[in-house]
């Protein structure tokens, strides 16, 4: 159940309370997020939409422990991450967060297999165990036959599938997707979304996704709109699409 009113009593997987983020730019203070509340349960799939500069990616960065809020708290699976030391936060990210970026951000000098293996290098898994995990992850995204290809030898859609495999290989608590289909054509975008749907439906993954595309957002359980730094709970994503798309 996804709520933005901050009144949830249940122990949500992700619990955000009074989140503020302010940037200073040329002496001017820009408040990107203002007292934002959010509750996301395990297995939820939520899409964030909103105009450019509304703070969607900032929210994703804060939820992923890549940035520090100006005020408020974020609790994930009982861990309050907003006051964690940088080194502990890094370890936390490795264990709990899988990132899927718009521009894939694969290491070009490593093969698909080696790229997917990267997060596992931080674990104590043996080489053979790592291989098993990587092959499983690449199997989920349907790229077992391309595991020894370099990113330059893959299409955009295939690169994004490698990114997804890298994000899920360590079985993180939740996935953060920043415009995962933003750089893809419709067919490839559909393929990626099919994989994401499978991750939610079959593997009960919790996914938070930023997108500009209402069709893509419609695949999520819920779409939340960010406007002027606050989250507005909308209709379900499918209703939103039928009603005419995002704001």
């Amino acid at each position: 159940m996804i709520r933005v009113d901050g009144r949830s009593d249940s122990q949500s997987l992700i619990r955000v309370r009074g989140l503020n983020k302010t940037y200073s730019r040329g002496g001017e203070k820009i408040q990107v997020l203002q007292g934002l509340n959010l509750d996301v349960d395990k297995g939820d799939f939520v899409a964030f939409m909103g105009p450019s500069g509304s703070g969607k990616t900032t929210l994703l960065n804060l939820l992923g422990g890549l940035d520090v809020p100006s005020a408020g708290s974020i609790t994930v699976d009982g861990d309050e991450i907003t006051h964690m030391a940088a080194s502990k936060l890094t370890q936390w990210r490795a264990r709990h967060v899988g990132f899927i970026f718009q521009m894939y951000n694969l290491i070009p000098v490593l093969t698909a297999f080696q790229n997917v293996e990267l997060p596992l290098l931080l674990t104590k898994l043996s080489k053979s165990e790592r291989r098993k995990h990587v092959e499983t992850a690449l199997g989920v995204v349907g790229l077992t036959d391309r595991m020894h290809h370099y990113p330059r030898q893959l299409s955009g859609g295939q690169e994004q599938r490698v990114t997804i495999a890298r994000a899920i290989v360590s079985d993180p608590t939740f996935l953060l997707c920043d415009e995962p289909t933003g750089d893809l054509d419709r067919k490839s975008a559909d393929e990626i979304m099919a994989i994401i749907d499978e991750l939610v439906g079959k593997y009960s993954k919790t996914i938070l996704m930023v997108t500009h595309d209402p069709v893509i957002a419609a695949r999520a359980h819920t779409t939340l709109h960010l406007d002027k730094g606050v989250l507005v709970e909308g209709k379900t994503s499918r209703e939103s699409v039928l009603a005419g798309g995002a704001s």
Partner: protein
Amino acid sequence: MKFSRLIFANLFRKKARLILTIGSFAIALVLFTFLAVVKSAFSRGTEIAGADRLIVVSRIGLMQLMPISYRDKILAVPGVRAVTHNHWFGGVYQDEKNFFPQFVIDPENQRKVMTELVVPEDQWNNFLKDRQGAIAGARTAARFHWKIGDRIPIKTTLYGGGSSEFNLDGIYHSERPGGDEGQFWLQWKYFDENAPALVKSTAGWYVVKLNSPDDAVRVAKAIDEKFANSSFETKTETESAFAAGFAKQFGNIELLIVTIGGVVFFTLLLVTGNTMAISVRERTSELAVLKAIGFSGRAVLCFVLAESVIIALFGGFLGLALAYLAIPVIGIALTGLLPPLILSKSLLTLGVGFALFVGAVSGLLPGIGAMRLRVVNALRRV
């Protein structure tokens, strides 16, 4: 080890740049090693000098001769065990380029004082019996492919000129590592008989063997006091001080070498540092992703440092290998102009240490930059 694939993959990302950087590192290492070898050659005299030996020269200068009668007077000074004397012969073998030092020695006392320079007994006995006999250092004999029994023609430029032929009766070796095996010894009696009147019954310098190195200061003072206010005043110093003073005649070699070495060091630092800075800058987003997925800043720093140290080691080993091959060739080409050039194990170790140090230092700044990289900024997303 599990990170080695990532490190090496990044290292070989731009092969042309890697080869050029390793090449420049190798060339700089050759230059560094050559400078270190030259410095070592000039300072070797002080390193191998006997701690229990003094050198007595004329107070006026090394080329000023002293009476041969000083030998017994020096021997009488308490604390002196043995005294021998030398002359600089200053001859030319075939061509002036074939320089090697020729000393007129005192056969009676040479081996009592210069104990580390060893001649086989039968060869030494032949030398004693042969007024025109000569003994060559092993390096000089090898250089000119001499063998015992050869006649060695030497044209002298001092003492009125003229040419003489000497019989090679023996070959000496030094028992000390890096010892001087380049000398050529002649008999003092034969030299004295043929010397001009002014040179007769003289010695160029005396070498004094002490009972104990602890006596050096006292004995040196006593010798100089003994000949004070005479026509031939002396200046006595330890062999190492004498060797250091001799090396200084060539100018401040050490300063020159340290200056050039410093320039090499900083140039290398800039070349490698620049390579690493460019390498880090062009994969900022990749480093940011590594940090995002859980690699610590320290791990990223280690990756960058590992890359620069590997470049430095590749370049360093290549440079040292080139130096190992080139220095003997250069040494032969410069024989006579420079002391023997020896690339010792300690210099090779120093070269590896130098490479490691430059590698670590040059990777440090780009590495710290990568370590401090803010993921959010690096991904260029707000």
